[in-house]
Structures are given as C-alpha cells and as structure tokens.
C-alpha cells in the first residue's frame, strides 16, 4: 500500500539528484556535541521534516546546510556541490532561502511589510519588474496585502510568520530551509501557514527542509527525521516511523480526580509514560 507522494516528480524524468546529501556530520560547540555523525538525504521537490525537542541539533544542522555555520566532520553536499569551503558554500547560497528560528526575528521591525519584502528582493538581486508581480501574488496568497504599510513590529505572530515566508521565497530559491517556523504560534495560524507553504512549494517545485518541535506536525512531511541530542532516532516516511512501534494509546478518566496521582504512579511502574 504505497502512499501517494504529495508532489509527483516531473513526468517522464529520471529520478532527480537529491538537493541535500549529508554524511557523518559532526559539529561541536566547545565541549558540547551538537550533531553526532548524522546522515540526511533530501530529495528534489520534497518537504522534509526534522522533528525533535530543543537541543536535538536541528538548528545546527540547518545552519550548516544553509552554509552559515562551520562544521567539524563529515560531508555536506547541496545541489551536488560539496560545501566544505566558505567559497563553495557561497556558490550555492543564491539558490537557497533560509529562515532562522524566532518568529519574525530576522525581519526588520521598523520597516513596513512592503519595505521588508523590497529589501529582501534587492538583497537577492530580484529584477524590479519580476518583483512587482511576484510580490502581488505572494501578498494576496498570504493575505498580507491589506497590511502593506504596517511596521513589522506591529504584526501579530501569524502575520510575522507569513511575512518571513514571503521574504524567504521572494527570489524563488530551489531549496528553502525553515527553522521552527511554527513554534509559538496557535493552531489556526499553523494550519494556515502549512496550507500556504504546501501550495507555494507545489507550484514552483521547491524543496523544503523544515524543523519543528511539535510532534503532531509529523504527518505534514513526506519524509522526516526524528532527532534527539544530535542523533537521528528514526528516519523515513511518517507511516514507516509510526510502524516501528506497535501498541495502543489508552486514555481514561477517573471518577475521583484526586486519585489521579496515585493512579499515575501505578501506571508508571508498569508502562513508560503516563
């Protein structure tokens, strides 16, 4: 029972080169090991997820792939190019977009929505005429067109998130890397964000590497890696990973709430988690 891919590969084309290939990556901060011998392959046109709590190494991994962080061991290839040197990394940056962690942190608070987008477009050398129509389309899609002149610092969390996405995509990169774009945002905005993201990626056949601390977003990805403290615990399609562990989730409500703690203790001694 094969799961249908979210985005079908171009008709009749050979399987494309993976956009990202990482082998045996290690990264240490002074004494602390952030990434420990990690492997990763992101296929073309794929939405790849990195799921894990804080300290799992997701941010470090993403920054390394984006070419903004040095690494201590292993090989990293982006678009088939080994980015071991700073110069090599520079060559591929034009085809990537990177959004760091923190809602709207990489945007400019005093500038308006439009000024932010214009800045990113100019930074990425997007020609002026292309910019006009692209901007219009993206703003309409994210429903930010009504807030064109509002300073970024006055936007709500969900709007900052969408603006960040627009700015990351404005130069139509082949690969975007988003570090926890949905953290700290309510479910409605999250849902909204995902539908916009998938629509955009599908349309332009962009690959995406997205990290999240919300486990329940796993089903959003075509492929994902579960990470913990610098290592990959499991990788593959969500269904594959789910299948690794069989069992049943039992939910129950006690008649007497106050006995909850004792019940919890009993359960803990028999099973893991409660």
């Amino acid at each position, binding site marked *: 029972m094969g*799961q*249908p891919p979210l985005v079908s590969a171009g008709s009749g084309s050979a399987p494309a080169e993976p956009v990202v290939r990482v082998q045996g990556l290690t990264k240490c901060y002074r004494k602390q090991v952030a990434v420990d011998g990690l492997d990763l392959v992101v296929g073309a046109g794929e939405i790849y997820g990195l799921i894990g*709590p*804080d*300290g*799992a190494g997701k941010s470090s991994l993403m920054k390394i792939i984006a070419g903004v962080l040095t690494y201590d061991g292993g090989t990293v290839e982006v678009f088939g190019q080994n980015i071991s040197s700073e110069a090599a990394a520079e060559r591929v940056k034009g085809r990537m977009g990177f959004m760091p962690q923190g809602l709207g942190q990489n945007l400019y608070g005093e500038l308006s929505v439009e000024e932010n987008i214009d800045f990113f477009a100019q930074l990425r050398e997007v020609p002026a005429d292309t910019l006009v129509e692209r901007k219009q389309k993206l703003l309409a899609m994210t429903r930010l067109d009504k807030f064109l002149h509002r300073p970024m610092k006055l936007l*709500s*969390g*969900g709007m900052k998130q969408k603006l960040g996405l627009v700015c990351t995509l404005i130069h139509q990169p082949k690969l975007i890397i988003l570090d926890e774009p949905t953290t*700290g*945002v*309510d*479910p*409605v905005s999250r*849902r909204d964000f995902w539908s916009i993201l*998938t629509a955009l990626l*599908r349309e332009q056949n962009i690959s995406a590497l997205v990290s999240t*601390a*919300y*486990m*329940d977003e*796993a*089903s*959003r990805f075509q492929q994902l890696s*579960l990470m*913990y*403290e610098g*290592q990959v*615990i*499991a990788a593959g399609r*969500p269904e594959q*990973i*789910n299948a*690794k*562990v*069989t*069992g*049943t*989730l*039992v*939910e*129950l*409500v*006690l*008649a*007497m*709430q*106050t*006995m*909850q*703690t004792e*019940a*919890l*203790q*009993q*359960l803990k001694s028999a*099973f*893991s*988690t*409660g």
Partner: protein
Amino acid sequence: MLRVFVEGQRETPAISQVKSLLSDFVIDDIRASQPEMEDVFIALLSRANLAGHERVEMIKSDRHTGLASSPALAIEADKICRDFGQFRAVDQVSFQVKQGEIFGLLGANGAGKSTVFKILTGIMPPTGGEGKVAGQDMRSASRAIKERIGYMSQAFSLYQDLTVLENIRLYGRIYAVPRRQLKQRIDWVIATAGLRGAEGRLAGALPMGIRQRLALGCALVHQPQVLFLDEPTSGVDPVGRRRFWDILIQMARVEQVAILVTTHYMSEAEHCDHLALMYAGRIIADATPAQMKHALQQAAGELLEVATDQPLQALKVIEQAGFEEAALFGTRIHLLAKEPQQAREQIENALAPHGISLLSLSPRPPRLEDVFVYRILEQEKEARSQ
C-alpha cells in the same frame, strides 16, 4: 485525563491490562486509539536508552496556609475589560477557576491571553470589571495577590549564572519565605521538580526540560495557592513535557493548587480540567475538553479522515464540493460532516470525474485542535461578514 501508551498490545488486551492494573480505582471512561508520533518518539528513545530516567518524587508538603480555609474559587474574573487607547484588548472576560483545578486558556497570539494574565496577577490595572485572585480583590489588594500566587513565564525568569540551588534560594528570599522554613522548602522544590543531583549546575547550562522544572519549582517555593503559567513547555521534548505535567497534576490534585495555564500544544490542553478559548479579547468557549468536542460534533458533525491517491488535487475538489474547511494533514484530508454517509457519497461522486480514487474514508474522534480551528475560523468568518 490520563494517557498511557501500552507498547506491543492491541486495543482490547491493552484496555484490559490497564483496567486490571487500576483495579482499585473507579474509572469513568476509557478508550483506545492509535499511538501518535509523540508516543512513538518516547518509545524509540527508551529503546535506545536515551531518555533520562530521573524519577519525580512525590512528596506531600506541609501546607501551613490551611487551604481548607481558603476560598473554593481561586480565580474569579467578572467582565474584565482592558483598553489600549481605541483598541479593546480584553472584552468582558468572565470565568472562574476552582481550587485544585487545572484551567487552560487557549487562543491565538494577540487574542488577549497575556493581558488577562497581567491583569489577574495585579501587574496591570483593568479598564473595567472586577476580579478576585486567592480571595483578594485584584484592584485593591495586588500586593496580597502577589504573595499568594506563583508565576512562570515563557521567557524563563531564571538567573543563568546562578546554580540551581542558588536560584531556588534567591526566589525563596524574594518571596519572603520565613527563614525557618526556607531549607525545608528548598528540599521540597528539589524533590518535587526532580532536581536531585543537579543542585550545583548552572541554570544556563541545563537542558530545556530541567530548566523548566526549575522555573516551576521557583514559582512554587512559597506555597502559592494559585499558579499562573504562560506557555511553560514551549520547545521542550515530549518526555520533559510529561514530567512537567506530572508535577502540575500533583500540585493540583494533592496540594489543591489552582493552575491557570496557556499553551499552544493541543495535546497538553487535553490534560486540563476546564478550557476557555479566547478570540479578539473575548471568551468564545468555556467548557471541559470533552464538552467542547461534543459541542463540535453537535455543531459541525463527525470528523472524517479521507485518504486518496492524489491528495492535493483531491483537496481542491473536496473544497469545491462544499467542504470549505477541509484541510490537508500530511497526505490525508480532514473534514467535518454532519451526515457522514451523505458526505461519503458526495465525495466519491466529486472525485470520480477527476480520476481520483478514494482509498479510505473513516471517522476519527475529534481532537482539541479540530475544535480550536473550527471555532476560530467560525469567528473569523463572522468578523469578515460584518
């Protein structure tokens, strides 16, 4: 509500296993479902022996402030309003939290949750309305309130360069815990928050999950009657989050502390005894999780999960077929339908002409996320039509 993942067992044996284990307790309701990614994650971690195994000790503290004499209602908010110039951030908000209850305040960023917190904790005055926290009036007795509450915010208020012990001691002094009791209280915090062995570590060097428990412990050092938690588990791993909630549950059930918590993790909202959903400064729903799910089913019908061989195109088609709020979850589509049978036919008919085959269509028990999304979208639709 308690959740247990029974590994390796199918539904029926799992339920009977749990039941027999809890034979001493009276169970109101019990049901089984498929494990979620979080359960898989934790199971995989324990297989690889990666998750720490610190036990959280449950020690009952000696509460000198006789809670029997404290009011049954820990928080009473009555038509609280707060304006910033023309902008009404909080609009006639009323709710009640009983002592010993875990109350969840949900809502989008900017819905007014933090403002409500600030008003109830006495940090910000309201423009209108009344409120009582721990029996004290929030307008006139804000100092008395601050002595009786604990507050933990998302941006931790720990001193990174102090050790765990130093932080707890500092908070003990700030909250004026009497000298004689201080040592006892510190011990209690360390035990309850599972910090044994970590006393000498710098707060800044702790992993997120432990840091949070420390922050929680510091908020509890003076035995508050009411606890205000603002997104306390954001970014913490599932194991850490569960340990955190274990502590909260103990505080509520055993110590009878009232807890008001905000979170974006819907799975945590399930732990709450009661929920209030905020939108644009107003409370649009105020009920138990079970009641909310039930209300959703009454209002919008069953939650159906649809699997097809071309999910993206299918979504478009289904939306056009009249299910405007259908949403994509990975490769499956979720939608609400009042008449599931009719919906099934409708969908089959809509998909067929496009050459899309329907792989499966089955009902799923709604989760709080579905409730949240439905209610908020409903409000947004209403706001647009005005």
